[in-house]
């Protein structure tokens, strides 16, 4: 449930940027625009998501241990 919530928030943000592009015949999508800074943002967010998922899993495991004892 929590993962889905986080994912939904993430997707909301990406949506915002595609929406901000606009223009009539603009073919280039966000990830290819100007300095390609969005690619860097995506890479960092991916790494951060990995670390957070790892932390969430650890948290769950410890909660399970606490319930057992």
């Amino acid at each position, binding site marked *: 449930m929590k993962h889905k919530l986080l994912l939904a928030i993430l997707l909301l943000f990406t949506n915002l940027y595609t929406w901000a592009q606009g223009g009539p015949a603009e073919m280039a999508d966000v990830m290819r625009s100007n300095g390609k800074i969005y690619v860097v943002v995506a890479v960092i967010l991916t790494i951060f998501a990995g670390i957070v998922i790892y932390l969430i899993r650890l948290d769950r495991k*410890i909660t399970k241990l606490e319930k057992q004892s």
Partner: protein
Amino acid sequence: MNKWWWKILSVCLLIYTIIAGLLFDVPKVMILNETIRNLYFHVCMWFSMMILFIVSVVNAVKYLRTNNLRYDILSRQYAVVGIVYGLLGYATGMIWASYTWADPNNPAGASFAAIAREPKLIGTGIALLIYAAYLVLRDSVSDLDKKARISSVYNIFAFAFLFPSIWIIPRLLPSLHPGGEGNPALNYNDIDARMRVVFYPAVLGWTLLGVWIASLKVRLNFLKEKTLLK
């Protein structure tokens, strides 16, 4: 501590920090250029480190007042995460300085000699070494109560030493590091409103992440020492 809302808040704030920190408008400053965005990451490490060390010393005092080993575990784990944040702050500062302070026209050795003299680097180096000694001291005493008492007292000393080493001495000496004349990142001349919008949430987000990691280690240690705890 087992509530989820503040962990979600931390993650949301950090996602915002990464997106806004890289994409939002920032002041155009010579030499710094785009590296001014490091404020959201490098400076936050030191802010969070300080907050984690405060939590650690408060728990050390609580241990000395109550002799409850729970507080000792809390104190130790918060100190460790604080040290990790300090090391990350140091490492990121190293990268940042090598592109803004180092003169590309001089040989690398000359630039290093200038940067290594920075009072802020030496001060934080000493402070982190003192905290590292805290861990060495702890693990060298085998008796549990003695270990807790000695390390709590030492923790208070280490915290007190943060003030001369990272707050006072670097402000008395000439330095390349900004913020020597006041509170870096807090006074209104250093960062403008555009950066404040990202910087304050970033500090909160990074601090909460540190608290989360520390709380995991604390809970694990509570389980391990279950039989000893009151």
